[in-house]
Structures are given as structure tokens and as C-alpha cells.
């Protein structure tokens, strides 16, 4: 069972990362992260996890064949209508 201040910190981390936390909460969380090894480690853990997800996703992009087919669809639709 985590202490309440750690539960709160873990719940706020995502908004912290997105820059969507109110300034006072941002400051409180920063202070908690400076003092709490567990939450600081967890922040690094979340960042490593999210970086890995983004890297895995970005290795795929729209195939040229699909892009060409989409252009064909647009051309056909604009001719037909």
C-alpha cells in the first residue's frame, strides 16, 4: 500500500508530463519527486516506457501504395461528382 502522497503523485504524473497540471500542483509534485526515491524512479520508468512505445509506433508510416490509392480515390470521387 503506497502512502497517500505517493498515490497522489502517481496519479498526477501523466498530467505533469503533458504540462496540464495547475501551477501549484506542479510545484508540489516537483518537490515530492525531489524527496521520494520511489516516485522519482517511477517517473523515469514511465518515461522509458512511453519513449519505447513512441519509437515502436514511429517505425511504421503510411505505405506509398496506400498513399497512391488514396489519391486515386480522391481523383475518382471528384470526377464522378
Amino acid at each position, binding site marked *: 500500500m503506497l502512502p497517500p502522497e505517493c498515490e497522489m503523485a*502517481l496519479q498526477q504524473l*501523466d498530467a505533469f508530463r*503533458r504540462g496540464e497540471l495547475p501551477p501549484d500542483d506542479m510545484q508540489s509534485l516537483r518537490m515530492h519527486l525531489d524527496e521520494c*526515491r*520511489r516516485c522519482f*524512479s*517511477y517517473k*523515469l*520508468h*514511465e*518515461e*522509458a*516506457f*512511453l*519513449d*519505447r*512505445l*513512441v*519509437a*515502436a*509506433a514511429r*517505425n*511504421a*508510416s*503510411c*505505405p506509398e*501504395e*496506400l*498513399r497512391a*490509392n*488514396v489519391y486515386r*480515390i*480522391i481523383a475518382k*470521387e*471528384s470526377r464522378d*461528382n
Partner: protein
Amino acid sequence: MSSPAVAVFEDEALPHLDTLYRVALRLTGDSSAAQDLVQDTMLRALRGWKSFRPGSNARAWLVTILRNQFINGWRSQKRSPSGIDMESIPEPPDPQDPDPEGRFFTELVDEEVLRAVDSLPDDFREVLVLSDMEGLPYAEIAASLEIPVGTVKSRLFRARRILQGQLRRYAESTGLLAPPEPAD
């Protein structure tokens, strides 16, 4: 459709093809099916272009169409349920665990990460893909999926924990990560 309207559609919609393809790929789990889904989405978007309000978010609108196309025409053809227990949420790592900072994530290959993502149930996978892989804000995801922001957050929280647990177990099973010390 007039030439100026086509030009506006191309300007608004085509920059999102990469996002649409990646989301479709994660929803269908197959490149060929993903391409078909994106083509269906673009055709539907083009035919419904008059209903798009200029200045509103084209990406959210396109994702909504793609997701509806997936639910209506694709989901039934999809793989069977994942069998993951979504009620059992792994705890966050303890400072005493090996690698509590998750350095092992960088050692995993893309295929394994994506396989684990693909094994999540649809409702959780789509939120995780839109948020953590494509970077959409909560509000945009909520609008696209037609669910409250609170539901987006709770699904995302559970999806992340479960995915992290899966990746950690995989890393332990392949020797990338030492298993945790048994509790005294």
C-alpha cells in the same frame, strides 16, 4: 466535388495519413487490412466532407470515422479476445525490484512491444495507441471515441499497467531482466 473543395480536403486530411495508417494497423493487426480500412475511411471522409466544420479538428474527425468503420465492418472479423485479465492490475515497480526505472524497455525489439500492444483488448488498445503512440490529447481521444475524458484516463491507466507487466514478464523470461527477489 469542386476543385477548391478537393484541394481543402487534401490539405486537411492527407497530413494525417501516417497517423490513420498506424492506428488502423494496431486496430486490425494486419497491414493489408489496415490499408483497406484507411482507404474506406478516406472515401467516407471525402463523401462526408460537407459535414466537416472548417476550423475543427480534422484528425479527430478522421479518427472517429476510422474507428466507426472498424467497429462496423472490421471488428467482427478480428482476432478472438485476448484472454488478458483486465481486473488484475499489476502494481507499479518497487524500488527494490531489478531495474525500477525501466531501462529494460530500451532493450526490447519493436516486434515484441507491438505484439504486446496488439494483445490488449480493443477498448484499451485504442486509447493507448491514440494517447501514447500518436500523442493525441485526452479531449481529442474522448471526442473521437465518444466517451468521457475520465474513461479515457482510467482505460489508459489500466492499459499501461497491464502492458508494462507483460513487457516486464517477457524481459524476465528472455533474460533481459533479472526476476524480482522473492519476498522474505
